[in-house]
């Protein structure tokens, strides 16, 4: 599936996403408006998918981060984490886990971003379906992250570093 998805992703230019949950109908409708009905599927559909997935979208990291990361890694596609809820008190700030591969984090408002630690966020964007500016920003964001190459963070950090072998 990894190889198949990687090939199909290159051949199809329009972004398709796998949403961690389709329970929130507002979010579902919002993405349908941006990407088109056929370019969204839930995790349960992905097992049988024959179409490419460019991006895994995790809505609320409290609920489905682990599964979304596994799916991202399996398909070799970037992960977009969208937080719509503030950090619950039972999760200490210093224990927040971030993926070690290509990902992006967006909060739907500043209060949510601050509760998790604003420095971890790439952007703040809401789901205002009537606002054309918001829709344009979302389109640009999805296009940007969706066409990125899946990579591990370690590799991108150390990319050009040269070092010398040392004797043990």
């Amino acid at each position, binding site marked *: 599936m990894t190889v198949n998805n990687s090939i199909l992703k290159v051949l199809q230019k329009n972004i398709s996403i796998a949403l961690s949950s389709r329970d929130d109908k507002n979010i579902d409708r919002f993405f349908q408006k941006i990407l088109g009905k056929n370019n969204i599927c839930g995790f349960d559909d992905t097992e049988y998918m024959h179409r490419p997935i460019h991006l895994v979208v995790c809505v609320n990291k409290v609920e489905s981060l682990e599964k979304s990361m596994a799916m991202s890694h399996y398909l070799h596609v970037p992960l977009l984490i969208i937080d719509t809820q503030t950090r619950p008190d039972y999760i200490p700030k210093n224990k927040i886990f971030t993926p070690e591969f290509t990902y992006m984090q967006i909060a739907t408002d500043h209060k949510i971003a601050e509760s998790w630690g604003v420095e971890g966020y790439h952007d703040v964007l809401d789901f205002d379906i009537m606002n054309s500016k918001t829709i344009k920003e979302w389109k640009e964001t999805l296009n940007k992250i969706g066409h990125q190459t899946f990579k591990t963070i370690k590799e991108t950090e150390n990319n050009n570093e*040269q070092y010398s072998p040392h004797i043990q």
Partner: protein
Amino acid sequence: MIPTKNILYLGPYMEESSRGYYSCMNIKALEKAGHNIKIIPLYSSSYLPNKISSDILHLEEKNLEKYDVCIQHCNPLQYVHNSYFEQNIGIYDFVNLDPNPIVNSNLFLLDKILVNSPNKLTILADILAPHVFERLQYSPQLIDVNHIQNKKQEKLEWVDENRFYFYSELEFSEQYDWEKLIYVYLTNFMDKNTGLIIKTNNISEDKIKIIKQQIYGMASSAMVKPIPEAMPQVLNGVYDEQTMFLINNSSDCFIDINKANEPSYSSLCFAALNKPIISHENSTTASYFKNTIKVDNMISNSLIKHGDDIMNNSITNYYYTLNSESLLNNMRKVYQDRHNKNQINYDNDIHKYDLSQINYIL
């Protein structure tokens, strides 16, 4: 002359392993041959993705309007056929040659499957169905010969120019004859004129300490007084291509005791540098280079203990173990040749393995 093709290449080029180097070299060769190529990294093993030559990474950003060929360098279970491409090519470089029916049918999906080792091809001839085997094609591992030969002056800073360094790559496990190699070195070569560099892959600091104690123990049981600066030096890690080149260029003789059916980057590098390579007679290195200095093999105890398992896994080289006397004689000969300043031309037909040979695969 093969016309320019638009190629989609998926492979483990971010892995710093033999597979990673192999993948990198294929990409460089395809680019050098003038093909348009887009690359996508695949992460398929536990090797840490790390530092890699940055000169191919720009190919990830390339987007072509149309693709003619798709090359999949991955586990055969992941091969897919896509009728969009004129040609679907697979690169089969897995060590475990599993005669599984799914592998058979997956190989049949592709138009051509490239295998980088003649030894492996021989094994696969017995395992695969004849109609599948027909699709296999030998395609050797490649290296940028001119690039290597132009950098002959570059060496590691800490090596002693006056010392003769033997170099080997191994894992400290029973599958490698590492104890034999170290014993032969300690008892016959360790002096102010020689050194032994051993490269291994990411093992723990604790294990390194134990190995060092074991090496000192071997010296004392052989009643050899350890000379600290001539004791075997262990490089532990995965290195980028340039660093591997520096290690190879700083050494004088490669002792390839790897039993896998894969040629290593170092064996190609040593051949390109016209330096001697000592290897066991059934190795892939020996099948690549006609002037490999061959060490006799003996049947190993592991065949007697686990014979059937080994036969079933078809990993033929694990049957063998190096003959210490033959290893010693060959090491001595190479060392003497150098000591006597004999100019030996280890003509290994390295140009057969130059990047320019890549067009044969398309």
